[in-house]
Protein backbone atom coordinates (compact mmCIF):
# COMPACT_ATOMS: atom_id res chain seq x y z
CA UNK A 1 0.00 0.00 0.00
CA UNK A 2 2.73 2.39 1.06
CA UNK A 3 4.68 1.38 -2.04
CA UNK A 4 1.86 2.42 -4.35
CA UNK A 5 1.37 5.67 -2.53
CA UNK A 6 5.04 6.52 -3.07
CA UNK A 7 4.78 5.71 -6.76
CA UNK A 8 1.65 7.84 -7.14
CA UNK A 9 3.36 10.76 -5.43
CA UNK A 10 6.38 10.50 -7.75
CA UNK A 11 4.07 10.37 -10.76
CA UNK A 12 2.19 13.43 -9.55
CA UNK A 13 5.46 15.28 -8.98
CA UNK A 14 6.72 14.34 -12.47
CA UNK A 15 3.53 15.56 -14.11
CA UNK A 16 3.61 18.80 -12.10
CA UNK A 17 7.21 19.52 -13.13
CA UNK A 18 6.45 18.65 -16.74
CA UNK A 19 3.52 21.09 -16.82
CA UNK A 20 5.63 23.76 -15.12
CA UNK A 21 8.36 23.37 -17.75
CA UNK A 22 6.06 23.25 -20.75
CA UNK A 23 3.33 25.71 -19.72
CA UNK A 24 4.96 28.93 -20.98
CA UNK A 25 5.99 27.38 -24.29
CA UNK A 26 2.60 25.77 -24.97
CA UNK A 27 0.43 28.71 -23.99
CA UNK A 28 2.57 31.12 -25.99
CA UNK A 29 1.96 28.89 -29.01
CA UNK A 30 -1.80 28.80 -28.27
CA UNK A 31 -1.86 32.60 -27.94
CA UNK A 32 -0.08 32.98 -31.29
CA UNK A 33 -2.71 31.03 -33.25
CA UNK A 34 -5.74 32.58 -31.56
CA UNK A 35 -7.71 35.29 -33.26
CA UNK A 36 -7.96 37.57 -30.26
CA UNK A 37 -5.54 40.37 -29.56
CA UNK A 38 -5.64 39.51 -25.84
CA UNK A 39 -4.86 36.18 -24.29
CA UNK A 40 -7.89 33.93 -23.97
CA UNK A 41 -8.08 30.30 -23.05
CA UNK A 42 -9.44 28.41 -24.81
CA UNK A 43 -9.26 30.76 -27.83
CA UNK A 44 -12.66 31.52 -29.36
CA UNK A 45 -11.37 31.30 -32.92
CA UNK A 46 -8.16 30.13 -34.52
CA UNK A 47 -6.30 32.22 -37.02
CA UNK A 48 -2.89 32.66 -38.57
CA UNK A 49 -3.40 36.41 -38.99
CA UNK A 50 -0.75 37.28 -36.38
CA UNK A 51 1.79 35.26 -38.35
CA UNK A 52 1.07 37.34 -41.46
CA UNK A 53 1.24 40.47 -39.34
CA UNK A 54 4.57 39.34 -37.90
CA UNK A 55 6.17 38.81 -41.30
CA UNK A 56 4.74 42.13 -42.56
CA UNK A 57 6.04 44.12 -39.59
CA UNK A 58 9.12 45.99 -40.78
CA UNK A 59 10.83 46.07 -37.36
CA UNK A 60 10.59 42.31 -36.91
CA UNK A 61 11.67 41.70 -40.48
CA UNK A 62 14.78 43.89 -40.00
CA UNK A 63 15.50 42.26 -36.64
CA UNK A 64 15.19 38.82 -38.21
CA UNK A 65 17.72 39.76 -40.90
CA UNK A 66 20.12 41.20 -38.31
CA UNK A 67 19.86 38.15 -36.06
CA UNK A 68 20.41 35.87 -39.06
CA UNK A 69 23.49 37.85 -40.17
CA UNK A 70 24.92 37.69 -36.66
CA UNK A 71 24.32 33.95 -36.35
CA UNK A 72 25.70 33.17 -39.80
CA UNK A 73 28.86 35.24 -39.21
CA UNK A 74 29.54 34.30 -35.60
CA UNK A 75 28.81 30.54 -35.60
CA UNK A 76 31.49 29.47 -38.16
CA UNK A 77 34.04 32.03 -36.93
CA UNK A 78 33.62 30.85 -33.35
CA UNK A 79 34.14 27.23 -34.35
CA UNK A 80 37.15 28.18 -36.50
CA UNK A 81 38.74 29.94 -33.52
CA UNK A 82 37.89 27.11 -31.13
CA UNK A 83 39.31 24.29 -33.31
CA UNK A 84 43.03 25.18 -32.96
CA UNK A 85 42.53 26.04 -29.28
CA UNK A 86 40.93 22.67 -28.54
CA UNK A 87 43.75 20.96 -30.47
CA UNK A 88 46.48 22.79 -28.55
CA UNK A 89 44.84 22.08 -25.19
CA UNK A 90 44.31 18.40 -26.01
CA UNK A 91 47.53 17.52 -27.84
CA UNK A 92 50.23 19.67 -26.25
CA UNK A 93 51.50 19.96 -22.71
CA UNK A 94 52.75 23.39 -21.71
CA UNK A 95 53.19 25.37 -18.49
CA UNK A 96 50.14 27.20 -17.22
CA UNK A 97 47.75 24.98 -19.14
CA UNK A 98 45.20 24.79 -16.34
CA UNK A 99 45.22 28.57 -16.11
CA UNK A 100 44.62 28.93 -19.83
CA UNK A 101 41.79 26.40 -19.54
CA UNK A 102 40.10 28.47 -16.84
CA UNK A 103 40.84 31.80 -18.52
CA UNK A 104 39.32 30.77 -21.83
CA UNK A 105 36.08 29.72 -20.12
CA UNK A 106 35.78 32.90 -18.04
CA UNK A 107 33.29 34.71 -20.32
CA UNK A 108 30.79 32.05 -19.19
CA UNK A 109 30.68 33.20 -15.57
CA UNK A 110 30.85 36.97 -16.00
CA UNK A 111 27.29 38.39 -15.89
CA UNK A 112 26.12 39.46 -19.35
CA UNK A 113 25.40 43.05 -18.36
CA UNK A 114 28.99 43.50 -17.15
CA UNK A 115 30.41 42.05 -20.36
CA UNK A 116 28.09 44.39 -22.24
CA UNK A 117 29.17 47.51 -20.37
CA UNK A 118 32.85 46.52 -20.57
CA UNK A 119 32.74 45.96 -24.32
CA UNK A 120 30.79 49.19 -24.74
CA UNK A 121 33.56 51.15 -22.98
CA UNK A 122 36.14 49.44 -25.22
CA UNK A 123 34.21 50.23 -28.41
CA UNK A 124 33.67 53.84 -27.32
CA UNK A 125 37.44 54.28 -27.03
CA UNK A 126 38.04 52.57 -30.37
CA UNK A 127 35.28 54.74 -31.92
CA UNK A 128 33.52 51.68 -33.27
CA UNK A 129 29.88 52.72 -33.75
CA UNK A 130 28.47 50.05 -36.07
CA UNK A 131 26.09 47.88 -34.08
CA UNK A 132 26.50 44.73 -36.14
CA UNK A 133 30.32 44.88 -35.91
CA UNK A 134 30.19 45.46 -32.15
CA UNK A 135 27.72 42.63 -31.62
CA UNK A 136 29.65 40.21 -33.86
CA UNK A 137 32.85 40.74 -31.88
CA UNK A 138 30.95 40.53 -28.57
CA UNK A 139 29.15 37.34 -29.55
CA UNK A 140 32.43 35.72 -30.68
CA UNK A 141 33.95 36.42 -27.28
CA UNK A 142 30.85 35.35 -25.33
CA UNK A 143 30.15 32.19 -27.35
CA UNK A 144 33.75 31.03 -27.68
CA UNK A 145 33.58 28.96 -24.44
CA UNK A 146 30.51 27.07 -25.71
CA UNK A 147 32.28 26.08 -28.92
CA UNK A 148 35.47 25.21 -27.06
CA UNK A 149 33.74 23.07 -24.45
CA UNK A 150 31.92 21.04 -27.08
CA UNK A 151 35.13 20.49 -29.07
CA UNK A 152 37.29 19.75 -26.02
CA UNK A 153 34.83 17.05 -24.89
CA UNK A 154 34.95 15.57 -28.39
CA UNK A 155 38.78 15.61 -28.48
CA UNK A 156 38.88 13.32 -25.48
CA UNK A 157 37.07 10.69 -27.53
CA UNK A 158 39.51 10.92 -30.46
CA UNK A 159 42.12 8.18 -30.17
CA UNK A 160 45.60 9.71 -30.71
CA UNK A 161 46.69 6.30 -32.06
CA UNK A 162 44.68 6.92 -35.25
CA UNK A 163 46.65 10.14 -35.74
CA UNK A 164 49.97 8.43 -35.03
CA UNK A 165 49.16 5.69 -37.52
CA UNK A 166 48.59 8.30 -40.23
CA UNK A 167 51.86 10.05 -39.33
CA UNK A 168 53.70 6.70 -39.55
CA UNK A 169 52.27 6.23 -43.02
CA UNK A 170 53.94 9.48 -44.03
CA UNK A 171 51.11 12.04 -43.70
CA UNK A 172 52.17 15.54 -42.67
CA UNK A 173 50.62 17.08 -39.55
CA UNK A 174 48.12 19.19 -41.48
CA UNK A 175 47.01 16.36 -43.70
CA UNK A 176 46.68 14.06 -40.70
CA UNK A 177 44.50 16.59 -38.94
CA UNK A 178 42.37 17.22 -42.01
CA UNK A 179 41.80 13.58 -43.02
CA UNK A 180 41.93 11.78 -39.66
CA UNK A 181 41.13 14.15 -36.77
CA UNK A 182 38.59 16.54 -38.27
CA UNK A 183 36.11 13.86 -39.43
CA UNK A 184 36.07 12.45 -35.90
CA UNK A 185 35.17 15.90 -34.53
CA UNK A 186 31.85 16.04 -36.33
CA UNK A 187 29.67 15.64 -33.21
CA UNK A 188 31.64 18.28 -31.32
CA UNK A 189 31.37 20.70 -34.23
CA UNK A 190 27.63 20.09 -34.49
CA UNK A 191 27.00 20.44 -30.76
CA UNK A 192 29.17 23.57 -30.64
CA UNK A 193 27.37 25.04 -33.64
CA UNK A 194 23.95 24.46 -32.04
CA UNK A 195 25.00 26.05 -28.73
CA UNK A 196 26.64 29.06 -30.36
CA UNK A 197 23.75 29.56 -32.77
CA UNK A 198 21.12 29.42 -30.02
CA UNK A 199 23.09 31.80 -27.78
CA UNK A 200 23.63 34.33 -30.59
CA UNK A 201 19.95 34.31 -31.52
CA UNK A 202 18.84 34.55 -27.89
CA UNK A 203 21.37 36.92 -26.34
CA UNK A 204 19.83 40.04 -24.88
CA UNK A 205 21.89 41.25 -21.94
CA UNK A 206 25.15 41.83 -23.87
CA UNK A 207 23.74 42.96 -27.19
CA UNK A 208 21.32 45.50 -25.72
CA UNK A 209 24.36 47.66 -24.84
CA UNK A 210 26.02 47.38 -28.24
CA UNK A 211 23.14 47.75 -30.64
CA UNK A 212 22.77 50.94 -32.73
CA UNK A 213 19.61 52.50 -34.13
CA UNK A 214 19.57 50.28 -37.22
CA UNK A 215 20.67 46.91 -35.96
CA UNK A 216 18.01 45.63 -33.54
CA UNK A 217 18.15 41.88 -33.07
CA UNK A 218 15.06 39.74 -32.45
CA UNK A 219 15.19 39.71 -28.62
CA UNK A 220 15.70 43.48 -28.50
CA UNK A 221 12.89 44.14 -30.97
CA UNK A 222 10.70 41.76 -28.94
CA UNK A 223 11.48 43.60 -25.71
CA UNK A 224 10.62 46.97 -27.26
CA UNK A 225 7.40 45.54 -28.68
CA UNK A 226 6.31 44.01 -25.35
CA UNK A 227 7.02 47.32 -23.65
CA UNK A 228 4.95 49.38 -26.10
CA UNK A 229 2.23 47.18 -27.62
CA UNK A 230 -0.16 44.53 -26.34
CA UNK A 231 -0.68 41.97 -29.10
CA UNK A 232 0.50 38.42 -29.90
CA UNK A 233 3.31 39.33 -32.35
CA UNK A 234 5.95 38.33 -29.81
CA UNK A 235 4.05 35.10 -29.19
CA UNK A 236 4.48 34.40 -32.90
CA UNK A 237 8.20 35.11 -32.68
CA UNK A 238 8.60 32.90 -29.60
CA UNK A 239 6.71 30.06 -31.22
CA UNK A 240 8.81 30.25 -34.38
CA UNK A 241 12.03 30.25 -32.32
CA UNK A 242 10.79 27.30 -30.25
CA UNK A 243 10.04 25.36 -33.43
CA UNK A 244 13.50 26.22 -34.73
CA UNK A 245 15.15 24.94 -31.55
CA UNK A 246 13.09 21.74 -31.58
CA UNK A 247 14.13 21.17 -35.20
CA UNK A 248 17.78 21.78 -34.28
CA UNK A 249 17.59 19.24 -31.44
CA UNK A 250 15.83 16.68 -33.64
CA UNK A 251 18.26 17.15 -36.52
CA UNK A 252 21.16 16.98 -34.12
CA UNK A 253 20.02 13.75 -32.46
CA UNK A 254 19.33 12.25 -35.87
CA UNK A 255 22.84 12.99 -37.09
CA UNK A 256 24.24 11.61 -33.84
CA UNK A 257 22.11 8.52 -34.38
CA UNK A 258 23.54 8.04 -37.87
CA UNK A 259 27.01 8.47 -36.46
CA UNK A 260 26.35 5.63 -34.07
CA UNK A 261 25.00 3.54 -36.93
CA UNK A 262 28.21 3.99 -38.86
CA UNK A 263 30.26 2.98 -35.85
CA UNK A 264 28.27 -0.22 -35.37
CA UNK A 265 28.89 -1.23 -38.94
Amino acid at each position, binding site marked *: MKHYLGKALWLLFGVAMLSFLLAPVIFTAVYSVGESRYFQFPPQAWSLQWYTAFFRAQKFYDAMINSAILAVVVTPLCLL*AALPTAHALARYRFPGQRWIDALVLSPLIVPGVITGVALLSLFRILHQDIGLVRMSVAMMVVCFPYALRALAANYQAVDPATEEAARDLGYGPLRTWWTITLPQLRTGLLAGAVFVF*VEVIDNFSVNVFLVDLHSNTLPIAAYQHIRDVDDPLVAVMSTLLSIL*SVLLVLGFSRMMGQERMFKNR
Partner: protein
Amino acid sequence: MKCRARLLLLPAAVLMAIFFGAFLVFAAVGMLTSAPGTPGYSAPLTFNNYLRFFTDPVGLGILGWTVIFSLLLTAATIVAGYPFAYLIARTQWPWARNLLLGVLLVTFLCGSISRAYGWLILLGRRGLVNEALMWTGLIDHPLALIYNVSGVFIALLHFTLPYFVLTVFGAIRAVPSQVEESARDLGASALRVFFQITVPLTLPAIVGGAALAFSLAISAFAFPLLLGGGRVRLISNYIYDQLFVAFDLPFAAAVSSLFLIVALAILWGFFAIERWATRAVYRRAG
Protein backbone atom coordinates in the same frame (compact mmCIF):
# COMPACT_ATOMS: atom_id res chain seq x y z
CA MET B 1 56.68 22.02 -30.78
CA LYS B 2 56.05 24.84 -28.32
CA CYS B 3 56.05 27.31 -31.15
CA ARG B 4 53.29 25.42 -32.93
CA ALA B 5 51.13 25.28 -29.79
CA ARG B 6 51.53 29.02 -29.43
CA LEU B 7 50.42 29.54 -33.00
CA LEU B 8 47.37 27.35 -32.41
CA LEU B 9 46.41 29.40 -29.37
CA LEU B 10 46.58 32.65 -31.32
CA PRO B 11 42.83 32.99 -32.14
CA ALA B 12 41.92 32.29 -28.52
CA ALA B 13 44.54 34.82 -27.43
CA VAL B 14 43.01 37.51 -29.65
CA LEU B 15 39.50 36.88 -28.27
CA MET B 16 40.74 36.84 -24.69
CA ALA B 17 42.70 40.05 -25.33
CA ILE B 18 39.46 41.73 -26.45
CA PHE B 19 37.59 40.37 -23.43
CA PHE B 20 40.16 41.28 -20.80
CA GLY B 21 41.19 44.43 -22.63
CA ALA B 22 37.57 45.52 -22.39
CA PHE B 23 37.69 44.93 -18.64
CA LEU B 24 40.86 46.96 -18.27
CA VAL B 25 39.38 49.89 -20.19
CA PHE B 26 36.24 49.53 -18.18
CA ALA B 27 37.90 49.55 -14.76
CA ALA B 28 39.75 52.67 -15.91
CA VAL B 29 36.57 54.30 -17.22
CA GLY B 30 35.11 53.69 -13.77
CA MET B 31 37.70 56.12 -12.43
CA LEU B 32 36.77 58.92 -14.83
CA THR B 33 34.04 61.47 -14.37
CA SER B 34 31.07 61.86 -16.65
CA ALA B 35 30.53 65.25 -18.21
CA PRO B 36 27.02 66.27 -17.09
CA GLY B 37 24.38 66.21 -19.83
CA THR B 38 26.55 64.45 -22.41
CA PRO B 39 27.43 60.82 -23.05
CA GLY B 40 31.14 61.73 -22.83
CA TYR B 41 33.47 61.59 -19.88
CA SER B 42 36.79 63.04 -18.91
CA ALA B 43 39.81 62.85 -16.62
CA PRO B 44 41.05 63.27 -13.91
CA LEU B 45 41.31 59.73 -12.58
CA THR B 46 39.64 59.43 -9.19
CA PHE B 47 37.97 56.79 -7.08
CA ASN B 48 34.92 59.02 -6.70
CA ASN B 49 32.56 56.69 -8.59
CA TYR B 50 33.55 53.76 -6.41
CA LEU B 51 33.19 55.85 -3.27
CA ARG B 52 29.84 57.17 -4.48
CA PHE B 53 28.49 53.64 -4.71
CA PHE B 54 29.65 52.77 -1.21
CA THR B 55 27.88 55.83 0.21
CA ASP B 56 24.70 55.26 -1.82
CA PRO B 57 22.18 53.27 0.28
CA VAL B 58 19.97 52.60 -2.79
CA GLY B 59 22.71 51.00 -4.86
CA LEU B 60 24.13 49.02 -1.94
CA GLY B 61 20.63 47.86 -1.05
CA ILE B 62 20.03 46.65 -4.59
CA LEU B 63 23.34 44.78 -4.63
CA GLY B 64 22.58 43.13 -1.27
CA TRP B 65 19.04 42.27 -2.33
CA THR B 66 20.34 40.77 -5.60
CA VAL B 67 22.67 38.46 -3.67
CA ILE B 68 19.92 37.38 -1.24
CA PHE B 69 17.44 36.90 -4.09
CA SER B 70 19.94 34.79 -6.04
CA LEU B 71 20.71 32.62 -3.02
CA LEU B 72 16.97 32.07 -2.37
CA LEU B 73 16.47 31.19 -6.01
CA THR B 74 19.41 28.77 -5.88
CA ALA B 75 17.87 27.08 -2.84
CA ALA B 76 14.50 26.79 -4.62
CA THR B 77 16.24 25.35 -7.69
CA ILE B 78 17.88 22.65 -5.56
CA VAL B 79 14.65 21.79 -3.73
CA ALA B 80 12.62 21.47 -6.95
CA GLY B 81 15.40 20.26 -9.23
CA TYR B 82 17.06 17.52 -7.21
CA PRO B 83 13.98 15.29 -6.81
CA PHE B 84 13.21 15.90 -10.48
CA ALA B 85 16.71 14.83 -11.53
CA TYR B 86 16.35 11.81 -9.22
CA LEU B 87 13.05 10.90 -10.86
CA ILE B 88 14.58 11.12 -14.35
CA ALA B 89 17.62 9.07 -13.33
CA ARG B 90 15.71 6.35 -11.48
CA THR B 91 12.48 5.93 -13.45
CA GLN B 92 11.90 2.38 -14.67
CA TRP B 93 10.38 3.56 -17.93
CA PRO B 94 12.97 4.55 -20.55
CA TRP B 95 10.34 6.44 -22.55
CA ALA B 96 9.56 8.62 -19.53
CA ARG B 97 13.28 9.38 -19.12
CA ASN B 98 13.59 10.32 -22.78
CA LEU B 99 10.45 12.44 -22.64
CA LEU B 100 11.57 14.36 -19.56
CA LEU B 101 15.09 14.87 -20.90
CA GLY B 102 13.70 16.00 -24.27
CA VAL B 103 11.38 18.51 -22.57
CA LEU B 104 14.28 19.82 -20.49
CA LEU B 105 16.44 20.23 -23.57
CA VAL B 106 13.72 22.05 -25.50
CA THR B 107 12.91 24.46 -22.64
CA PHE B 108 16.66 24.93 -22.23
CA LEU B 109 17.01 25.98 -25.88
CA CYS B 110 13.80 28.01 -26.12
CA GLY B 111 15.33 31.36 -25.37
CA SER B 112 15.04 33.68 -22.39
CA ILE B 113 12.87 36.40 -23.92
CA SER B 114 10.39 33.80 -25.19
CA ARG B 115 10.11 32.20 -21.78
CA ALA B 116 9.85 35.48 -19.90
CA TYR B 117 7.08 36.41 -22.32
CA GLY B 118 5.34 33.07 -21.76
CA TRP B 119 5.24 33.75 -18.02
CA LEU B 120 4.00 37.27 -18.68
CA ILE B 121 0.98 35.75 -20.44
CA LEU B 122 0.41 33.03 -17.85
CA LEU B 123 0.76 35.15 -14.73
CA GLY B 124 -0.87 38.38 -15.88
CA ARG B 125 -4.13 39.73 -14.43
CA ARG B 126 -6.12 38.03 -17.16
CA GLY B 127 -3.60 35.20 -17.43
CA LEU B 128 -4.33 31.52 -17.19
CA VAL B 129 -3.24 31.08 -13.57
CA ASN B 130 -5.53 33.84 -12.31
CA GLU B 131 -8.44 32.68 -14.49
CA ALA B 132 -8.05 29.13 -13.19
CA LEU B 133 -7.87 30.23 -9.56
CA MET B 134 -10.94 32.47 -9.96
CA TRP B 135 -12.82 29.65 -11.68
CA THR B 136 -12.17 27.25 -8.82
CA GLY B 137 -13.37 29.95 -6.45
CA LEU B 138 -10.15 29.98 -4.44
CA ILE B 139 -9.83 33.72 -4.97
CA ASP B 140 -12.29 36.38 -6.05
CA HIS B 141 -9.83 39.04 -7.19
CA PRO B 142 -6.93 38.36 -9.55
CA LEU B 143 -3.64 38.02 -7.71
CA ALA B 144 -0.82 40.39 -8.59
CA LEU B 145 1.65 37.82 -9.87
CA ILE B 146 3.64 39.95 -12.27
CA TYR B 147 5.31 43.31 -11.83
CA ASN B 148 6.49 42.08 -8.46
CA VAL B 149 9.06 39.70 -7.04
CA SER B 150 6.95 36.54 -7.31
CA GLY B 151 6.69 36.69 -11.10
CA VAL B 152 10.41 37.28 -11.53
CA PHE B 153 11.11 34.43 -9.10
CA ILE B 154 8.84 31.92 -10.86
CA ALA B 155 10.17 32.75 -14.32
CA LEU B 156 13.80 32.65 -13.17
CA LEU B 157 13.23 29.31 -11.45
CA HIS B 158 11.95 28.03 -14.78
CA PHE B 159 15.12 29.37 -16.38
CA THR B 160 17.67 27.90 -13.93
CA LEU B 161 15.96 24.52 -13.46
CA PRO B 162 17.12 22.80 -16.71
CA TYR B 163 20.76 23.80 -16.11
CA PHE B 164 20.68 22.37 -12.60
CA VAL B 165 18.76 19.19 -13.45
CA LEU B 166 20.97 18.38 -16.44
CA THR B 167 24.10 18.84 -14.25
CA VAL B 168 22.86 16.67 -11.38
CA PHE B 169 21.12 14.00 -13.46
CA GLY B 170 24.40 12.48 -14.70
CA ALA B 171 25.80 12.27 -11.17
CA ILE B 172 22.71 10.45 -9.86
CA ARG B 173 22.89 8.01 -12.78
CA ALA B 174 26.50 7.32 -11.84
CA VAL B 175 25.49 6.10 -8.34
CA PRO B 176 24.77 2.37 -8.83
CA SER B 177 21.18 1.66 -7.78
CA GLN B 178 22.50 -1.52 -6.09
CA VAL B 179 24.08 0.70 -3.42
CA GLU B 180 20.66 2.12 -2.59
CA GLU B 181 19.02 -1.31 -2.77
CA SER B 182 21.47 -2.91 -0.38
CA ALA B 183 20.93 -0.10 2.12
CA ARG B 184 17.20 -0.68 1.82
CA ASP B 185 17.70 -4.43 2.24
CA LEU B 186 19.60 -3.72 5.44
CA GLY B 187 16.46 -2.06 6.74
CA ALA B 188 17.05 1.64 6.06
CA SER B 189 13.91 3.62 5.22
CA ALA B 190 13.56 5.20 1.78
CA LEU B 191 14.09 8.69 3.19
CA ARG B 192 17.18 7.60 5.10
CA VAL B 193 18.67 6.01 1.97
CA PHE B 194 17.98 9.20 0.06
CA PHE B 195 19.60 11.52 2.60
CA GLN B 196 22.44 9.25 3.79
CA ILE B 197 23.46 7.57 0.52
CA THR B 198 22.24 9.37 -2.60
CA VAL B 199 22.53 13.00 -1.52
CA PRO B 200 26.04 12.76 0.01
CA LEU B 201 27.39 10.84 -2.98
CA THR B 202 26.08 13.43 -5.43
CA LEU B 203 26.95 16.45 -3.30
CA PRO B 204 29.75 17.72 -5.61
CA ALA B 205 27.32 17.79 -8.55
CA ILE B 206 24.66 19.50 -6.41
CA VAL B 207 27.09 22.25 -5.43
CA GLY B 208 28.33 22.56 -9.03
CA GLY B 209 24.77 22.83 -10.32
CA ALA B 210 23.94 25.30 -7.56
CA ALA B 211 26.93 27.46 -8.59
CA LEU B 212 25.60 27.43 -12.15
CA ALA B 213 22.08 28.35 -11.00
CA PHE B 214 23.48 31.11 -8.79
CA SER B 215 25.60 32.62 -11.55
CA LEU B 216 22.56 32.64 -13.85
CA ALA B 217 20.36 34.18 -11.15
CA ILE B 218 22.79 36.91 -10.17
CA SER B 219 23.26 37.94 -13.82
CA ALA B 220 19.49 37.98 -14.45
CA PHE B 221 18.57 41.01 -16.49
CA ALA B 222 15.83 40.36 -19.04
CA PHE B 223 13.52 38.61 -16.53
CA PRO B 224 13.32 41.45 -13.99
CA LEU B 225 13.14 43.93 -16.86
CA LEU B 226 10.08 42.24 -18.39
CA LEU B 227 8.33 40.70 -15.39
CA GLY B 228 9.34 43.24 -12.78
CA GLY B 229 7.72 46.15 -14.59
CA GLY B 230 10.30 48.59 -13.18
CA ARG B 231 9.39 47.65 -9.62
CA VAL B 232 11.81 44.75 -9.24
CA ARG B 233 15.33 46.01 -9.78
CA LEU B 234 18.26 43.73 -9.54
CA ILE B 235 21.81 45.02 -9.85
CA SER B 236 21.93 44.42 -13.62
CA ASN B 237 18.88 46.65 -14.08
CA TYR B 238 20.43 49.30 -11.84
CA ILE B 239 23.56 49.30 -14.05
CA TYR B 240 21.42 49.50 -17.18
CA ASP B 241 19.56 52.51 -15.73
CA GLN B 242 22.82 54.27 -14.91
CA LEU B 243 23.76 53.91 -18.55
CA PHE B 244 20.51 54.58 -20.39
CA VAL B 245 18.61 56.81 -17.97
CA ALA B 246 21.41 58.73 -16.26
CA PHE B 247 23.89 58.41 -19.19
CA ASP B 248 26.69 57.89 -16.71
CA LEU B 249 29.04 55.28 -18.18
CA PRO B 250 31.81 55.87 -15.61
CA PHE B 251 29.48 55.24 -12.68
CA ALA B 252 27.94 52.22 -14.44
CA ALA B 253 31.45 50.86 -14.99
CA ALA B 254 32.37 51.38 -11.34
CA VAL B 255 29.21 49.63 -10.11
CA SER B 256 29.82 46.79 -12.58
CA SER B 257 33.39 46.30 -11.34
CA LEU B 258 32.21 46.04 -7.74
CA PHE B 259 29.36 43.75 -8.76
CA LEU B 260 31.82 41.53 -10.65
CA ILE B 261 34.06 41.25 -7.58
CA VAL B 262 31.10 40.29 -5.36
CA ALA B 263 29.77 37.73 -7.90
CA LEU B 264 33.17 36.12 -8.42
CA ALA B 265 33.85 35.97 -4.67
CA ILE B 266 30.58 34.11 -4.04
CA LEU B 267 31.19 31.78 -6.99
CA TRP B 268 34.67 31.10 -5.65
CA GLY B 269 32.97 30.13 -2.37
CA PHE B 270 30.75 27.68 -4.25
CA PHE B 271 33.76 26.12 -5.96
CA ALA B 272 35.59 25.80 -2.63
CA ILE B 273 32.58 23.94 -1.22
CA GLU B 274 32.48 21.77 -4.34
CA ARG B 275 36.15 20.79 -3.90
CA TRP B 276 35.52 20.03 -0.24
CA ALA B 277 32.46 17.90 -1.13
CA THR B 278 34.42 15.98 -3.77
CA ARG B 279 37.14 15.17 -1.25
CA ALA B 280 34.46 14.08 1.24
CA VAL B 281 33.01 11.66 -1.33
CA TYR B 282 36.44 10.12 -1.92
CA ARG B 283 36.97 9.81 1.83
CA ARG B 284 33.69 7.95 2.18
CA ALA B 285 34.66 5.65 -0.66
CA GLY B 286 37.94 5.02 1.20
